[in-house]
């Protein structure tokens, strides 16, 4: 199974079509974090997210004949997105923010920071992330999906358009509205605003870390596999 790990999606899919379940499981391992994270952030419930992730891969496997090449990740995320929206509609409730917060704490402590400047800054950054994650949970579904895919998962606008089934213009408009809303939500909170201003100062002081223009470059960037 390890021999498969360096292969591209297309090569793996060819192996899957000839009956290699192990090849499909390499794809599962490759994308399960993305699929689960999308489902979790959309539903705010780890059990529902688990169901959707499992269902997504089962569906992908059984419906593989309908995949006609192209971007496998986008195809997979499209299944997950549709399943998650179906579930959202059926339960008709917003994600549980409290759960979101406790989870965010977990993630921060588990994953940590690559070379954090200082423990204080690290704690502040973790708190800001937690607040951001909470603010994200309050966005309307369509904006939230778009922000998650674009800014968290790093999908191209084209990919997002195909995943969510809308035009490129709609993707951009949802993304800009979602980000503006996130900024407004963080600014409205005293603590969050302080932390955000602090973070902005750190970023602008950092050595050439300004992310200006990242938006325009992303659009043409191919998804990394």
């Amino acid at each position, binding site marked *: 199974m390890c021999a498969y790990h360096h292969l591209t999606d297309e090569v793996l899919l060819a192996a899957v079509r000839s009956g290699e379940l192990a090849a499909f499981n390499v794809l599962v391992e490759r994308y399960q974090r993305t699929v689960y994270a999308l489902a979790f952030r959309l539903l705010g419930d780890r059990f529902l997210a688990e169901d959707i992730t499992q269902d997504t891969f089962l569906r992908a496997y059984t419906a593989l004949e309908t995949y006609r090449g192209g971007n496998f990740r986008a195809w997979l995320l499209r299944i997950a997105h549709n399943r998650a929206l179906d579930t959202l509609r059926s339960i008709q409730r917003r994600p549980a923010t409290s759960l979101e917060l406790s989870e965010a704490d977990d993630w921060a402590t588990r994953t940590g920071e690559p070379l954090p400047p200082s423990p204080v800054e690290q704690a502040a950054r973790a708190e*800001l992330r937690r607040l951001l994650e909470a603010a994200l949970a309050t966005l309307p579904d369509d904006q939230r999906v778009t922000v998650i895919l674009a800014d968290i998962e790093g999908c191209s606008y084209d990919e997002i358009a195909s995943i969510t089934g809308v035009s490129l213009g709609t993707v951009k408009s949802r993304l800009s509205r979602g980000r503006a809303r996130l900024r407004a939500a963080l600014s409205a909170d005293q603590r969050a605003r302080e932390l955000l201003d602090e973070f902005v100062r750190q970023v602008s002081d950092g050595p050439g870390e300004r992310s200006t223009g990242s938006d325009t470059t992303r659009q043409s960037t191919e998804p990394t596999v």
Partner: protein
Amino acid sequence: MQYSGGHPSDELISAFLVGAIDDPAIGATVSGHLETCPACREQVAQLQAITKLLAELPAPPLPRSFTLTREELDRLQPRPWYLRYQPVCRWASAIAAALLVVLLGLDLLVFGPTAVEIPGAAGVRQATPEPIAEAPAAAMNAPQERTAAAEPTAAPALASTPVGKEVPTDESMSIMATTPEADQAAAAPNAAPATGGASTTVSTVLRLGASLAGIVFVISVGVGFVVPRLVARRGSHVR
């Protein structure tokens, strides 16, 4: 996406960063404003910081691995019924098609052109009363002719009316045909003689077999070819 108090709105600035402003004039205005307005530049910095933070958000921990096992696949997603019967149905459709052609061809070859002789043979037998008894029996094979059996008064009338010799050729046809005329013809006095012909019975059997083969063909083509294709097409916009 408007200006408020001389400053572009939150959304307008965000749209500018995303590249979502279609009107180049508006884009230039926003760009020009950002050059000169520190407050709006701060907004830009915040939006960029948020984008950066979002990219850093750690993925939620996976509760487990979602790799599939063969057992899981068999248990959770049993092969759909149409796929299970697909090979059988494909064979069945081929065989049924062949049978259909052979039976119809045989019927046409043997009885089609020689159908004129049958009334003659049937006409001889008409003198005897037996055909009356046979009429309902034949009717059982062809449901369309139920009316003949259902009307007892019509059946005795067959024997009493001596129309014997002028049995028309279409009488033999009426027994085999599944058209509405069959009802009328069967109820008519001259129906009985034609059913007596042995060759007619063979022809009926042939056509009955052909109909059965036709039904099997339609069903097996449906299950073996049409249903899987329809499902596959519907699955291409996976929900």
